[in-house]
């Protein structure tokens, strides 16, 4: 019983098989997290390839799904990063699909949510911000630093504003990763607690009468979590596009 209600247990990584090899002090071992990631990549790839296999003019069900996804992400990139932001479209699309599928996979019963581990979301956010920095410097050189100095400001104001802008910039990958991670983590913990509550009440004799109450809450929370899973993937893609906009147009 105690194990069932433990809301943290679901985030535990489970090793599968022997460690494959070691790199330095790190052992490389297949975990259910790695399996979920590989599964997500396989699923996305299969859907994308099967959806486009027909190449029919009038799309079937799978092809419309693929096209809707494509158009959705494309319009997000276009509206947030501008038309020249489309060169980053594959990156944003991969991020969106990856996060979306992993978020939704975590909603399966007994599922594991890869995106509830901060190292994963942080790595994705760092990837985004490194793309912004590297591309920004490659395209604009030192003018990219103009991002931190709003034009038309008094020099005295700049002394205060530039550090704030720098910190604000550094906070971007943090907020990007923390938001996704915290949403997934908090949602799943809340779900688990309420579900566990139902189980506890059912096992507690007379109190079982009120068990439908937390059950209803758990059902409502599940619906909310599905919404959050999709929404957070979308927010991740949108913010990535907005940050990429800075790399393309650092000036004002």
């Amino acid at each position, binding site marked *: 019983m105690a194990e069932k209600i433990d809301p943290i*247990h679901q*985030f535990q990584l489970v090793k599968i098989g022997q460690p494959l090899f070691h790199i330095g002090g790190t052992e490389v071992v297949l975990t259910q997290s790695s399996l979920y990631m590989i599964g997500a990549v396989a699923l*996305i*790839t299969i859907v994308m390839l099967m959806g486009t296999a027909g190449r029919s003019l009038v799309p079937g069900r799978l092809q419309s799904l693929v096209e809707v996804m*494509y158009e959705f992400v494309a319009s997000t990139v276009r509206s947030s990063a501008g038309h020249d932001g489309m060169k980053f479209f594959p990156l944003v699309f991969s991020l969106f699909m990856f996060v979306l599928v992993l978020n939704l996979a975590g909603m399966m019963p007994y599922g594991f949510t890869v995106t509830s581990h901060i190292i994963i979301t942080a790595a994705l956010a760092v990837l985004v911000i490194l793309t912004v920095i590297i591309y920004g410097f490659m395209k604009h050189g030192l003018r990219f630093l103009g991002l931190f100095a709003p034009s038309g400001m008094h020099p005295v104001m700049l002394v205060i504003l530039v550090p704030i802008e720098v910190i604000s910039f550094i906070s971007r990958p943090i907020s990007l990763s923390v938001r996704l991670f915290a949403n997934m983590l908090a949602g799943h913990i809340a779900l688990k607690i309420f579900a566990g509550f139902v189980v506890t009440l059912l096992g507690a004799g007379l109190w079982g009468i009120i068990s439908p109450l937390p059950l209803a809450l758990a059902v409502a929370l599940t619906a909310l979590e599905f919404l959050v899973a999709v929404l957070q993937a979308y927010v991740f893609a949108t913010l990535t596009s907005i940050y990429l906009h800075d790399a393309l147009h650092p000036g004002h």
Partner: protein
Amino acid sequence: MAQTTTASTEHPAEAHGNFPPFDSHSFGNQLLWLALAFGALYVLMSKVALPRVAAILEERHNRVADDLAQAAKLKSETDAAIEAYEKALADAKAKAQAIAGETRDKLAAETDARRRALEADLHVKLAEAERQIVDGKTKAMGNVRGIAVDTALAIVERLVGKTPSADEVDAAVGRALPASQVQ
């Protein structure tokens, strides 16, 4: 996690007691798998899947644009055909009307001429008839005088017993008959 490297453990590394998402021991492993998985996904998407979707959408876009252009062309052709047809119809109508008008005028003129000829003919005949009547009347009147003279002669002869001279009777009849009737 070093001590849990034994065979297929379904047991999580609970020895640490850490909150799993913050367990830094697993970071290296997770990062490696993430890099592999996401790298593969990025390559697959950017090199294979997305160009295919883009090609499909492009093709549809072009096809739709083509179809629209074709439809516009057909429509303009149809419009032209309708216009030509309407023009031809209007022309034919005008022509028919002209012919009808012409025919009507011609017929009217012919009828008129014939009627006028007929009328002239009738006038002539009427005048002739009137003249014959007048002639007849005059002749008849002349006859009436002769008859009156003869009758008067006979009556006088019978009444008086003697035969008056023709000139006397004639004069008397001339007096008795109004001048207008004699003529």
